[in-house]
């Protein structure tokens, strides 16, 4: 098991380093700044955890869970990155991604995540439940973003589609894994949990590395497309108001 953890850990670090180096070379680092901030954070944390595992094994569980909880929250940066990139070229709906992300987060946080702390249970069970519920919240956000992109028939581009797919795989593996751990209990499932969990991360990192190898974001190419039509915010707002007032007149007939 130790050898397996070592191999998975090294593969993870290599993929993260490759992502950062490639991003810097291809220029994607500036375009996807939130995503690469997360990857840099993840790389540093993985390295630190790796060193703690070999140097101070007694301190390892506490460090692992602390970093895991912080990264659970940091993962929301990827959602913001995805939401920004889908709608960025379209001025009128530029804020739609953030609007959806913030609204779903707020609603599910109040109705779904926070109530999980009300039940009395052990720390490990509470952590598993919290991880499960935040993962499900992220799944709902990704689905909402994909549905909104489909509704407006927006092209996603290989980079954004890859980010979504990789993150989706990671969340699905973690959700199924944590649900199984919760159902079967610590004694029965602890080894399998340690086995499958890191595999989900490696799968996600592999998809991201392939997707982010070359800049293929639609937003960059379409920005050039739209360059021909410079317009002011006032002009855009005026046109949208005109469409709305036409429909309002129809309602009042």
């Amino acid at each position, binding site marked *: 098991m130790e050898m397996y953890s070592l191999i998975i850990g090294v593969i993870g670090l290599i993929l993260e380093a490759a992502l950062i180096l490639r991003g810097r070379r291809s220029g994607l680092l500036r375009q996807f700044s939130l995503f690469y901030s997360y990857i840099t954070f993840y790389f540093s944390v993985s390295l630190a955890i790796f060193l703690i595992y070999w140097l101070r094994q007694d301190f390892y569980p506490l460090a692992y869970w602390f970093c895991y909880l912080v990264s659970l929250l940091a993962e929301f940066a990827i959602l913001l990155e995805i939401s920004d990139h889908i709608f960025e070229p379209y001025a009128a709906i530029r804020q739609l991604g953030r609007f959806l992300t913030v609204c779903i987060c707020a609603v599910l946080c109040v109705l779904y995540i926070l109530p999980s702390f009300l039940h009395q249970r052990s720390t490990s069970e509470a952590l598993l439940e919290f991880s499960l519920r935040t993962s499900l919240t992220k799944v709902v956000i990704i689905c909402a973003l994909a549905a909104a992109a489909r509704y407006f028939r927006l*092209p996603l581009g290989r980079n954004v589609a890859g980010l979504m797919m990789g993150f989706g795989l990671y*969340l699905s593996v973690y959700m199924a894994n944590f649900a199984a751990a919760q159902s079967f209990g610590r004694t029965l499932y602890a080894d399998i949990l340690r086995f499958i969990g890191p595999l989900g991360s490696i799968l996600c990192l592999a998809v991201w590395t392939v997707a982010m190898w070359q800049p293929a974001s639609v937003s960059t190419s379409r920005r050039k497309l*739209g360059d021909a039509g410079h317009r002011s*915010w006032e002009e855009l707002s005026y046109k949208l108001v005109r469409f709305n007032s036409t429909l309002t007149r129809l309602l009042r*007939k």
Partner: protein
Amino acid sequence: MSLLAYAIIGILFILLLALLLRDKRLEEPTETVGETEYGPDLWDEKSLLLYERIFDPGDYSWLQDDLRFSHLARALVRSRKRLALRWLKAVRRSFEHEVLTPQMFPSGAETSTDFGRWRPLWLTLRFHFVWGYIFFMVRLFGPYCLLVPSFSWRHFIPELSSRRGPLRDG
């Protein structure tokens, strides 16, 4: 939730995501300027007249009440309903052309206020909501239905009518 529920959610999520991301329309640019059939130009006087005419029940009343050609009146409603739906779809296409054309504002032209940045989104969502409602109503009840429910029913409540009566008489 049980293990089975989470496992099903995970599998369904991956399938749904793969389905959404595989869609051809999401991979290819949708707008081909000059090739797409745009909707009515709301800045054009003719287009406004057409819209007034489609949703105006005058012709229907004339056939139904004055000439008493009920079958012709019904045929007119059917054809006007088709026209109204086509007009609504065209308006939506036109709106989407405005909204979904990638834009780059000249440097310094980006609005600095939060209100300015959120306003186009509010207008877009409002348009889609109102459009959906009108389309649903026209499809279900035809172009001459009352889109906003009237409050004429309150006259049937004697208490309300008697209270308002003296006020109206002065």
